[in-house]
């Protein structure tokens, strides 16, 4: 656990390495999250759109980043959380979530850290970039 009192610009959170994305991962997340878009679940639909196969829901990777954040601070310290989906996550990919402190500011009587977030695959491609603002003191 990182001591929240000692974080500074450049501090990196421990990374979160996920298991490889399987079809079961996508089916469970589709049902649990409520996103039933078949492009993530049904290879026939994916092929009809010119794709080779289904691909992961972007919100699955954002949920993994959420785990990284709540593994670090209690959830009620998160003020905002945003991502840009830069590339699709194919089947069998192994995502790694990372975060780095980009700024520490005093806002509205709170000490807040601005985090830079990323999800990277084993081949080095970046699928998500984003940021979060969390209260550290």
């Amino acid at each position, binding site marked *: 656990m990182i001591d929240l009192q000692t974080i500074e610009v450049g501090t990196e959170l421990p990374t979160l390495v996920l298991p490889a994305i399987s079809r079961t991962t996508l089916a469970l997340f589709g049902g649990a999250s*409520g996103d039933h878009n078949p492009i993530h679940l049904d290879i026939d639909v994916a092929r009809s759109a010119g794709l080779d196969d289904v691909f992961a829901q972007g919100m699955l990777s954002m949920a993994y980043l959420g*785990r990284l954040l709540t593994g670090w601070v209690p959830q009620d310290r998160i003020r*905002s959380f945003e*991502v840009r989906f830069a590339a699709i996550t194919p089947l069998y990919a192994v995502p790694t979530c990372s975060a780095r402190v980009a700024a520490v500011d005093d806002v509205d009587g709170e000490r807040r850290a601005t985090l830079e977030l990323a999800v990277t695959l084993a081949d080095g491609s970046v699928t998500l970039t984003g940021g979060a603002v969390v209260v550290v003191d």
Partner: protein
Amino acid sequence: MAVSATAVGVVLAASTAVIERGRLRFFAEAIGETDPVYSDLDAALAAGHPDLPAPPTFLFGLKLDGPDPFGWMTDLGVDMRFVLHGSQRFEYHRAVFAGDEVTFSPRISDVYDKRGGALEFLTLETAVNRGDELVANLTETIVVRHPELEPAR
């Protein structure tokens, strides 16, 4: 078919959903969450929560619980097979827990295109309330691909 710019400002139908414990446990399992606060009621209570908390991105999917969650897009002529999620933002005002009933009030706030119309962008802003309390604001960008308009390579 291109989405008309007149869609900007359109207020979509509000929807209401109850956050259920079983759904939260299923969500925790699906994302591999191992912190018991998100699946074990006793652990949540011991952490000072009134019930299981909804994790940071949960409200996005709960919003899709209505009978025709993508109807607002298909009504605009969007082929769902060519839709990508471009970006997503959450602003948090209050924590929400199992047993809470929340209301989603979405509004189309922007429509624009890039690459000569080959990519269209729709921005949806959704306020989430629990009774009179604003608990979160969600902002999403949806990308609609039009492969037939892509320049030949």
